[in-house]
């Protein structure tokens, strides 16, 4: 304390040590936030700068060029990403939403629910590459499907599940208890209450979670490198095509980032731009959607 007399001075002094220390700490904390956002600005700047210069129509209609040549596009990788993420979504959404329904509607928050919520959290901490190794061990090494869109889709589904379960669980919890009682009170069965009353009410929140998890999955690379592999050609349109290796945007970015050809590097930036724009749009939509809650 700064005062030396026996009378304690209770007034705050603007120029006192405590005030100065506070000011310094406030500036340090501000600095922390700014420094945190520097990489975001830097990544955005370079992705926009490099990606836009390569953003042409042929990006969406043509195959990537062979090494050393210019021109070409990312069309096969865009299709591949849609296919693999589509498979993952088809697997993860029903499992995730029904699990959330169990947790919030039928479990009474007992021990089972506690265990499943814990398992979900643990699952969300599983590194993405481990999901890839799992899918490889389960489907590729055993020869069930081989390197394919399906193997990649399973790996991505594992990564999408925790997000879908948690957001759906939260969305269902927000639905007021009254409307469940009202539905049950007029004679509806549990399944009718859930499917026709509670789920529709929670739909905006669930869709938000699903969209976010789709955006994340589209950017995942590690589990796809050795499950879907990569292909320089157009994907096979027959159903057998799902059992063949396929190009995806994220793996293309990885492959083309580490080769010493400028045309390929440019395509990697363009692919990154598409991925980043996808993430930005979904995040903003998710933000807006959660504001418009039904209840």
């Amino acid at each position, binding site marked *: 304390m700064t005062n030396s007399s026996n009378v304690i001075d209770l007034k705050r002094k603007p120029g006192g040590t405590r005030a100065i220390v506070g000011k310094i700490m406030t500036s340090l904390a501000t600095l922390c936030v700014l420094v945190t956002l520097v990489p975001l600005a830097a990544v955005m700047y370079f992705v926009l700068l490099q990606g836009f210069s390569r953003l042409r129509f042929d990006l969406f209609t043509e195959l990537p060029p062979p090494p050393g040549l210019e021109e070409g596009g990312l069309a096969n990788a865009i299709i591949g990403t849609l296919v693999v993420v589509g498979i993952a979504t088809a697997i993860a959404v029903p499992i995730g939403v029904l699990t959330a329904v169990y947790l919030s509607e039928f479990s009474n928050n007992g021990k089972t629910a506690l265990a499943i919520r814990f398992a979900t959290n643990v699952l969300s901490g599983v590194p993405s590459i481990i999901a890839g190794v799992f899918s490889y061990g389960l489907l590729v090494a055993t020869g069930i499907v081989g390197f394919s869109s399906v193997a990649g889709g399973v790996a991505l589904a594992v990564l999408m599940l925790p997000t879908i379960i948690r957001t759906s669980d939260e969305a269902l919890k927000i639905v007021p208890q009254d409307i469940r009682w009202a539905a049950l009170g007029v004679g509806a069965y549990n399944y009718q209450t*859930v499917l026709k009353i509670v789920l529709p009410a929670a739909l905006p929140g669930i869709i938000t979670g699903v969209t976010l998890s789709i955006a994340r999955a589209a950017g995942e690379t590690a589990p796809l490198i050795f499950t879907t592999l990569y292909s320089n050609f157009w994907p096979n349109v027959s159903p057998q095509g799902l059992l063949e290796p396929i190009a995806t945007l994220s793996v293309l970015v990885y492959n083309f980032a580490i080769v010493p050809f400028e045309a390929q590097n440019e395509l990697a930036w363009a692919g990154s731009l598409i991925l980043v724009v996808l993430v930005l749009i979904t995040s903003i939509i998710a933000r807006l959607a959660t504001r418009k809650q039904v209840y």
Partner: protein
Amino acid sequence: MSVSGYPQQSTGVIESRSSVEKNLDAGFRWLTYIFALLIGLILLSIALVIAVAAWPAIVEYNFSFFNNSNWNPVTDEYGTIAVIYGTLMSSFIGLVIAIPLGIGAAIFLSEDFIPENLRTVLVFLVEILAAIPSVVYGLWGIFVLIPISKTLGVWLFENLGWIPIFSRPPAGPGMLPSGIVLSIMILPIVIAISRDSLASLPPDLRQASLGLGATRWETIFRVLIPAAISGIVGGVMLGLGRAMGETMAATMIIGNSNRLSISILEPANTIASLIANQFAEASGLQVSALMYAGLVLMFLTLIVNIFAELIVNQIKAKYE
């Protein structure tokens, strides 16, 4: 909504429910229950599938897997000490950078230093930081960060070269740029969890401290941080789990050298990038060895994550 079997004329008697509908109802409950159990099953089967596939390597190398630094597919000699060092060291660099920045930012974003609206925007931006695909960070790292970190590395080598971790001239790709990227990638989670645990503290704590005459920062340091410390530690642990499992950014930046070097300015490797690099072209015992490495990584991250989960849950239970 039509409820089948509802009588047209009200007779005062409610018909009993049909057995078909009753079964349907019970069936639906069971369906959700089975899917819920599936989550636990998936978690178990991840461990099981990897362990089974790794078994030949576990039998072959046993514990020599952990005290051998050679990773040589040609001679089928596999040891992970170099990649385990790489995983831990790069995560550690990430934490050293992310802890002060993350906690500082969390304090700034949880207390009312700035108007609510501006805060929402900043929080949103931090969330975006978490959502950018790691392969994009990798691409950015190769072309933008590595040149910058090389300059930093040269300075560290010339001025602090007597410290073992700076003892080699920087090669460009290496542990240092990789650690910097990891710190960027784990910052959002450290900030989010620390912010949550600070924000979930009861307002009484703050009011009491301010009422006694403490300044805002005295309140933060002596009351709020000690009260929220377990949540903050939990957030840091979750960040550590992320950093250890992060693959693409590390793979593209760390240099993928399996040689053990203490210096953080030299190329190195992590378990995750080892797997990412070699899996697609691996065959025979190498696949098992990679699976074994994957098992080690899963074990490491599981321990860290479960520990973090327990700590974070503890603080939630305390104040809710």
